[in-house]
């Protein structure tokens, strides 16, 4: 870094012509990264779709065993966290350091709340022997409008395999998101971001929203779609 660079904008990297070019590059890069995330989860959604069509009854019966309350509360938690992310970006735009830090911290706390509730949900699956593997046990029947239909436990196990892989991958993304936002909160507290430079807040926010949106798809597909009662 030459003294010349430091004089006008310390955040501007040497290989960019100006701050606008740097910002455009960063946000295009982030959007492309989100595309790769969608393709990543897309593989699992594809597997889910195929097995749901193949083993409809088992998937419906499995779906009814999920805890809709914990899933519903978690959905609300994530939606609120998306709001606090938006407010954080607003605060960064206005250059309000303390407010920005506050919203980032609240976002991290909401993310952790989600993970804790998810942990209780996983614990419940262990208790009910709904975790795939040698201890897996599934005797519930699928109630199709008054009729009771037997369910092949192997097929139900597949539903729970997909449930764990999909929500597990999502939870891993939440953990990464919490780490990312904690870092951003520390940087924000130290005054790293100004009204002229807050690209990392914006891009971190994009990541957080994407992870939320993936949950918004997971929740109905796993919990709601086959629920009649």
């Amino acid at each position, binding site marked *: 870094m030459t003294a010349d660079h430091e004089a006008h904008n310390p955040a501007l990297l040497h290989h960019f012509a100006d701050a606008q070019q740097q910002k455009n590059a960063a946000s295009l890069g982030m959007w492309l990264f989100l595309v790769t995330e969608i393709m990543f*989860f897309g593989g699992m959604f594809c597997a889910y779709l195929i097995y749901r069509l193949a083993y409809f009854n088992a998937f419906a019966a499995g779906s009814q065993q999920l805890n809709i309350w914990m899933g519903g509360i978690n959905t609300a938690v994530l939606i609120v966290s998306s709001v606090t992310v938006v407010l954080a970006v607003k605060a960064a735009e206005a250059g309000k350091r303390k407010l920005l830090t506050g919203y980032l911290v609240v976002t991290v706390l909401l993310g952790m709340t989600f993970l804790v509730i998810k942990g209780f949900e996983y614990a419940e699956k262990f208790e009910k022997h709904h975790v795939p593997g040698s201890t897996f046990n599934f005797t519930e029947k699928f109630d199709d409008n008054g009729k009771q239909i037997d369910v092949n436990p192997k097929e139900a196990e*597949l539903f729970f395999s997909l449930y764990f892989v999909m929500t597990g991958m999502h939870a891993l993304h939440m953990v990464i998101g919490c780490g990312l936002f904690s870092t951003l909160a520390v940087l924000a507290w130290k005054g790293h971001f100004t009204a002229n430079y807050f690209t990392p807040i914006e891009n971190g926010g994009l990541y957080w929203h994407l992870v939320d949106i993936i949950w918004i798809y997971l929740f109905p597909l796993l919990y709601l779609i086959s629920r009649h009662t």
Partner: protein
Amino acid sequence: MAIKAATPVIPANQVPKLNYLTNGYGLKSWLLTTDHKRIAILYLISVSAFFFLGGFFAMLIRLELLTPEGDLMQADTYNKVFTMHGIVMVFFFLIPVVPAILGNFVLPLMVGAKDLAFPRINLLSWYLYIAAGVLFLHCMLSGGVDTGWTFYTPYSTAASNTNVIEAGLAIFIAGFSSIFTGLNFIVTVHRMRAPGLTWSRLPLFIWSTYATSLVMILGTPVIAITMVLVVAERLLHLGIFDPNLGGDPVLFQHLFWFYSHPAVYIMILPSMGVISEIVPCFARKRVFGYKFVALSSVAIAVFGFLVWAHHLFVAGISLYAALVFSFLSFVVAVPSAIKVFNWTATLYKGSITYATPMLYAFGFIGLFTIGGLTGIMLATIGVDVHVTDTYFVIAHFHYVMVGGVLMGYLGGLHFWWPKITGRMYPEGWAKLSALFVFVGFNLTFFPQFILGYLGMPRRYWQYPPEYQVLNVLSTAGASILAVGYLLPMIYLLWSLRYGPLAGDNPWGAAGLEWKTASPPPTFNFDETPVVTWEAYNYDEIPEPKELEAPVAR
């Protein structure tokens, strides 16, 4: 002349004192560099190491197949050897070779940028490549893996006793390296082009690398999740791909080939771009049908995503799906053919010089055409059912992968070697090794077409004695090919010290990378270049004078 020289002219035969190579000497200045040119050199060293490792496995395969009996190794060992040959060559050589070495070096130069958009992510992607490589080396040393590079389930998840998990994780990590490279290239092409460098003025290497990057970021995440599922299935006994547990192995094949077929285009597209640079330069003509060559790269990237199930014709997919995928596989041949026709048309009435890069370009055009046409044969369901899993398929994809990708890579490496190092390679030796590569390659792989047609299956360590003559020919060819690959390593290293100084533009080539010094300074251009000319304006560029005699140092 409409060319505006943006950098101060450095007299020919004099290396600029301060360039990217002399800017810091310690190990740290290399391992912590964010200079795309230095990262390209890091890739050059590491990818070459994996190439020779993969080549070593290839030689073991060819030696075993010299005789009909399994005398050099037993079936288990042979399974591991061909698997590791495949994994090393596909994931650690073919996919990164042209984008990460040549692309990393010339892409920012070609668009007139100081660096890639995200230099630190660029370095990160090299470290991810190394991490994946080290993990896979450990996997090999601790027993290896025997599933074939395709990891077909349920064998890989329920039956194999080898190190599948480690190999799967290595591929997962290598995938991230590839994703970050692609992402970096796309953003750089969109956001970092020099003033005046419009899309219709971009060099064709940029177009093809851009198309490659699209495939990288759209396809690689799918192999990543597939590998995660395979690893999870092995570790936690999930049944997603295991028919015993209700899963579907054909789903695995769909997910695997959804990436791995487009991955073929990740490999071949950048090499096609290299050929599009070399042919106009050594024919002294603007490339014929610039727009068609440029857009055919994008067309290949798009159609390349729609043909994957032609790997599944015998896997029990529906007849109608097979018909559609057969048809689409024919369609993807069209943009590839457009490129071949346009290169040939560029040669027509050109003033052709037979320098080494051009020899490789000729090799590429011929061998890729054979590889592509046999691909059309394989896209035909009736023929495919007959030759599935035979040496015909092996020969077909080696014509594309080795005859195509490697020819393009070696051509590009020789073409840009003076830019990378500031020195010329010895032309005589280079021509000799190009000859070795061409003859050795054809002798290795042409007999395999016949072997496959006669019914010799792939992946066996023994074969009936009537196949021996053709197998001996193939092994003989592989030995010649090995010499052809070892020679460049020797003379290119020699040229670092003893090669004649190249000057900024020894080929009289168009393109911004030739308008800066050789080797370029750390930030590529002293002043941001302004482009006011079309790509490949060879009618405006004088032919290069004969190179002067080597200067001893």
